């Protein structure tokens, strides 16, 4: 298996190649919107990938059901619903939009997940709403106590220079190593 020279650290060029391969892969999975590549309008070298998802809001009523679902789904934090099977209740109340961007960090030399979540009127979800809707309940504590001030916070989007939430990248390299070890183990057995 070929790995970049300094894996888990990537150069920007390695990130660009991997991200574009990932886009191709995402096009083959039928049920979700594929990821797309975006460049800065004027300056080269600030490209990233993005995808919009419609996510069902967790209300006190459906929270219990979802919480049970969480324990069965290992690597999906929440279920993204097929747009065609929306229930009859108004979309605006039940769903919100999440804008996911995966951006290369020149400092940490790893991909970083940036995201913003919008209500149908364009307002941003609050920090608390993000935790209750997008973070696995069993992980709340770990994520809130990581680093100086939790692993999720706001930061300027490196390309757009507007506020985005992001998952702090200082432990991403460790995670990427463990993913590769898991792949190796699976190949070995």
């Amino acid at each position, binding site marked *: 298996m070929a790995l970049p020279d300094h894996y888990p650290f990537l150069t920007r060029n390695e990130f660009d190649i991997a991200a574009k391969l990932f886009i191709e892969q995402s096009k083959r999975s039928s049920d979700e919107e594929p990821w797309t590549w975006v460049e800065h309008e004027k300056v080269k070298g600030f490209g990233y990938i993005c995808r919009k998802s419609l996510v069902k809001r967790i209300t006190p009523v459906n929270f219990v059901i979802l919480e049970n679902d969480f324990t069965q789904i290992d690597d999906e934090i929440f279920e993204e619903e097929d747009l065609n099977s929306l229930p009859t209740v108004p979309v605006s109340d039940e769903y919100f939009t999440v804008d996911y961007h995966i951006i290369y960090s*020149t*400092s940490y030399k790893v991909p970083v997940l940036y995201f913003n979540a919008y209500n149908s009127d364009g307002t941003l979800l609050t920090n608390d709403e993000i935790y209750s809707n997008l973070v696995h309940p069993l992980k709340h504590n770990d994520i809130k106590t990581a680093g100086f*001030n939790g692993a999720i916070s706001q*930061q300027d989007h490196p390309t757009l220079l507007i*506020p985005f939430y992001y998952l702090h990248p200082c432990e991403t390299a460790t995670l990427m190593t463990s993913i590769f070890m898991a792949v190796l183990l699976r190949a070995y057995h």
Partner: protein
Amino acid sequence: MTAPQNPITRAIWDGTLPIKFSLDSTEAAALGAKAIVEPYFIEAPRCSYFPLWTSQIRKYFVDMALNFIGDDAEIWYDVDGTPLKWHYPIGLLYDLHTGYRPDSNSPPPLPWPVTVHFKNFPADKLIKAQAIDATQDFFMSMIKEADFLRNGSTKKVMNLSKNDQTQLWDGLWSKNYDRFWSVNYRLVINDGQMPKNVPMRIYLPDNCPVIQEPISPVDENGNQLTLGDVLHQVLPELFPSPLPSENASASPVPVIHGIIPQLEIPIVWASQNLCYPDNFLHIVVLLGI
């Protein structure tokens, strides 16, 4: 505990900017101000952050009969209609937004006119957060990132005692040079080891993304790179040579702390002596006059 004597870091620490804060006039009326409210003047350290001044500014305007009971985090600042990123140091914001070239013949735009807003927080343009705590978090995450750039890990910062970590922020907040630099000195000097990369950001005009490439302080033969070498390497079109241009005023210049540093200084020296308290060398590039 006193910090090692360094007249350069001391001068940068002591650098201040006179700022004139005016109320947005339409907001002032909506918030019940009956007469024209006189502006508020402060002299703020260049290395400080706006949220550290917010409660003082708020008190002044509320004392002037402004009816505001909201949270400090609702208060924001703009210059000529552009919201100011409160997580940037004040001196960087001034250099960036005034675009004032220290080598120009005109006087600097001082006191710096800044508008204060108590309403309509632009959450699509500015990070919304609880004022002072959030500033501290940003500050510490910058210090952590700088450590990662220098050493490929954040161990040096994370291994600081809780007390030393607190002392960095407290020193900045309370304008206590010795408190801050006695701890920060150890980070910036990096135990005498050449850093892998120099923590630096370059700001260009016209809303370009901030440039933050990994910058090695030495070339492949181990020779130290100068500031001019680095600018030439990162922005060859703006800096076609690592040496100063003959027609200085028509050429782009780097501005740090309101001065144009010599291009011949080694980049490591610049990083250790001219960095902001967040450990980054923030360089504003201004185009020719």
